[in-house]
């Protein structure tokens, strides 16, 4: 029997969150954390968590698993469980709506702030805009972000200034558009990021890199943005 400890909070009945203990029979199989949650939901249907694709591409089930942020659906027990104990908490730093469900509002707002869409003021051709494979390669490691928020909610800088620091996820996307040979709004994009908070609150802690379930590297992207800001200003 796996010992599972889960952060519970229902605003309608609880004045404060608490940890609830469950016993889960995994039949000795190395299942995913999401499967454990499904088994728990069969015991207690009031358990709330988000999930969708169950294969690590939609980014719904980011949570804090034994102290580290990750996606429940692609985290096998063998990767996290020691001493038969699994502790699940909501993503750190965001307001908890219920149980493992957090209010992602400010996270999405920071994403929207970087104008996460291609901007090109030239008239598009009748076919596609051409882009060389080398130019396209620059988007690898950037466009794959699934907005699960594991990175931003593991980032102390984002914990302290979620309203001002764009956070690793948003900045990775900011660079995704800065790096796109088809985008023509680099100057405007950079101007929006020059203040002391948006980008520069990154202290190179690299928690984002450590937790990204897609193996992406926001710290490096932030470094590139800094370089572009330098080029732009000097």
């Amino acid at each position, binding site marked *: 029997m796996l010992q599972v400890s889960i952060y519970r909070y229902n605003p309608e009945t609880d004045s404060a969150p608490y940890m609830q203990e469950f016993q889960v029979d995994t039949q000795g199989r190395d299942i995913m954390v999401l499967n454990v949650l499904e088994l728990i939901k069969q015991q207690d249907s009031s358990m709330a968590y988000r999930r969708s694709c169950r294969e690590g591409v939609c980014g719904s089930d980011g949570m804090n698993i034994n102290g580290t942020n990750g996606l429940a659906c692609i985290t096998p027990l063998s990767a996290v469980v020691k001493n038969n104990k699994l502790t699940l908490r909501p993503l750190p730093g965001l307001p908890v709506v219920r149980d493992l469900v957090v209010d992602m509002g400010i996270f999405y707002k920071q994403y929207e702030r970087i104008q996460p869409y291609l901007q090109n003021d030239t008239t598009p051709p009748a076919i596609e805009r051409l882009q060389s494979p080398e130019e396209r390669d620059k988007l690898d490691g950037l466009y794959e972000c699934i907005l699960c928020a594991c990175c931003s909610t593991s980032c102390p800088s984002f914990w302290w*200034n979620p309203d*001002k620091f764009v956070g690793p996820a948003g900045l990775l996307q900011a660079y995704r558009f800065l790096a796109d040979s088809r985008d023509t709004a680099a100057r405007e994009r950079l101007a*929006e990021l020059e*203040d*002391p908070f948006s980008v*520069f609150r990154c202290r190179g802690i690299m928690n984002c890199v450590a937790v990204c379930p897609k193996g992406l590297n926001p710290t490096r992207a932030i470094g590139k943005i*800094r370089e572009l800001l*330098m080029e732009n200003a000097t």
Partner: protein
Amino acid sequence: MVTNVTNFSRSGLSDWLIQQVSAAILALYALFMVGYFLLHPQLDYVTWHGFFSQTWMRIFSLLAFIALSAHAWVGLWTVITDYIKPTRLRFGAQVVLIIAIFVFLVWAIQILWGA
């Protein structure tokens, strides 16, 4: 763009550059001083005082102290804005920080030229 009155500087970029440059100066100064002490294991007052009486040393030291002020301002302003959330308290802390840096700087000038 996030604006903040107490930033006192043009941009995050200049803050960042200031911190890098001041860090380099301070690193040099620290290495220099450690080297000096290692080379003078039996230091006496005359040598020590003479060392600090040279103009270049005074200027180098002053540069280091100015770098120190800038470095501390950028670094500690970041710390304060990270952890202190109530506005009045945060502003108060920033004022205290500025005064402290000012005192250190005046003290430094007094040490270097007052003696």
